[in-house]
């Protein structure tokens, strides 16, 4: 394979497998995410997209293979998972905001407790980020006072507060009402333009087409097709990919 030099790679996934009981969820994944690149992971529910993202953030232990972050193997037992997670940002499908904390405390918790920033410094930066994502003035609200779209933008802000090397986005719009999806996607689009390195599990094909440099199609725990969004979404080679896209089309999701 040719391509950018290895030093460009932010996340490298090499032969990663994972089974829950007898259910093989990841059946040998290879994927490289380069600096400033956005890769969209697409595939049916249960194809392993979420599990792969959770493995990268060391929320799930892999069975075999290696995951590298900036050239360092992070799935080795000797590596401190906390230090790795501090270099990555994760946004969950169901937001997972801390319901007992205000918006700003949600955002600054990691900055203060994990990254050792002063409260003042963290608050200032959190305010800027919240402002940027259209949440100015909502700092002292509790998460349940916000709409789903606003909550997800808070979650995105929380993930960015630790200045991550890469963002892992797990179906960030799947739990939202259709009219609230737009604002969240705008925010992600914005981050892409700014050069954020991202791995995005998504069901939004139009979004994948627009934001992703590459699309990887997962089927039963394997990446069976990968390439530019134009090619994968318009002229998929594999019958499984075609079937998946046809189904989305029929469901009005493209």
């Amino acid at each position, binding site marked *: 394979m040719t391509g950018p030099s290895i030093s460009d790679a932010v996340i490298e996934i090499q032969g990663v497998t994972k089974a829950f009981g007898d259910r093989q969820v990841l059946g040998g994944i290879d994927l490289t995410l380069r600096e400033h690149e956005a890769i969209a992971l697409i595939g049916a529910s249960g194809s392993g997209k979420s599990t792969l993202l959770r493995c990268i953030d060391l929320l799930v232990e892999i069975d075999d293979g290696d995951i590298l972050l900036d050239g360092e193997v992070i799935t080795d037992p000797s590596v401190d998972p906390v230090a790795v997670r501090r270099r990555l940002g994760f946004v969950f499908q*169901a937001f997972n905001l*801390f319901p007992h904390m205000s918006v700003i405390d949600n955002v600054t918790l990691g900055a203060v407790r994990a990254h050792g920033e002063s409260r003042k410094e963290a608050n200032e930066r959190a305010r800027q980020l919240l402002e940027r994502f259209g949440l100015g003035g909502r700092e002292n609200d509790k998460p349940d006072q916000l709409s789903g779209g606003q909550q997800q933008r808070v979650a995105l802000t929380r993930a960015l507060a630790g200045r991550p090397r890469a963002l892992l986005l797990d179906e960030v719009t799947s739990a939202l009402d259709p009219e609230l999806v737009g604002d969240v996607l705008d925010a992600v689009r914005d981050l892409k333009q700014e050069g954020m390195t991202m791995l995005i599990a998504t069901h939004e094909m139009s979004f994948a087409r627009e934001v992703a440099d590459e699309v990887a199609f997962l089927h039963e725990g394997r990446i069976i097709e990968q390439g530019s969004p134009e090619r994968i979404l318009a002229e998929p080679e594999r019958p499984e990919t075609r079937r998946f896209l046809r189904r989305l089309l029929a469901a009005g999701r493209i």
Partner: protein
Amino acid sequence: MVLTSEGWPDVQETFFSADAFKTSFPEILKGFWLDVKLFVGVEIVVLILGLLIAVIRTSKVPALFPIRVLAAIYCDFFRGVPVILLVYLIGFGIPALELSGMPDDPVILAAIALSLAYSSYVAEVYRAGIASIHPSQSDAGLATGLTRIQTLRFVVIPQAIRRVRPPLLNDFISLQKDVALVSVLGIAEAFRIAQIETLSTFNYTPLLAAALLYLAVTIPMARILDHITAREQINA
């Protein structure tokens, strides 16, 4: 009906004697101050110790396995033994050992017995609360870069405590009454003083006076509990 029945004057004299009330109440009230000090002190110890035990019992770190087993035995034992038996056992048993450095003040020993019993109840309440917080909250804490202990401290435990405030208060109300059990060690608390008065005069009014004092703290506490429960149902 009751007030006009033939036996009423006797009943009134035995249970509701104004004279007996007036002479016994100041002493009983003084004794009740000891009850208050006991249940407040014990409650503070219980809230801290119970949380510590619950955290140990819910931890999943393999290295903590032996401590986890100890914590489980602790809960099983102290939850399964009658409180009065524990008060006896510790209140009389420890001094009988005549070990140096061991407390021999019966009030301290009584406080230890109550703390052991109630921390095992409260640990189970906390444990249920911690278990009720969805694992996705821990995931979010870890993903934010927190350590496991920080995730517990800032994310899981504050939510768990909020959720179990009603049962915690309920146990606190039980404790406020159970402090009377320390009277078996001869400690001059409200019930004990009332009992002595009653035994010397064959008048039960002092016991009723003591009952009023217990009610004076448990009923407001019960109303607070109702208030919290009602508010939580609105929020849920």
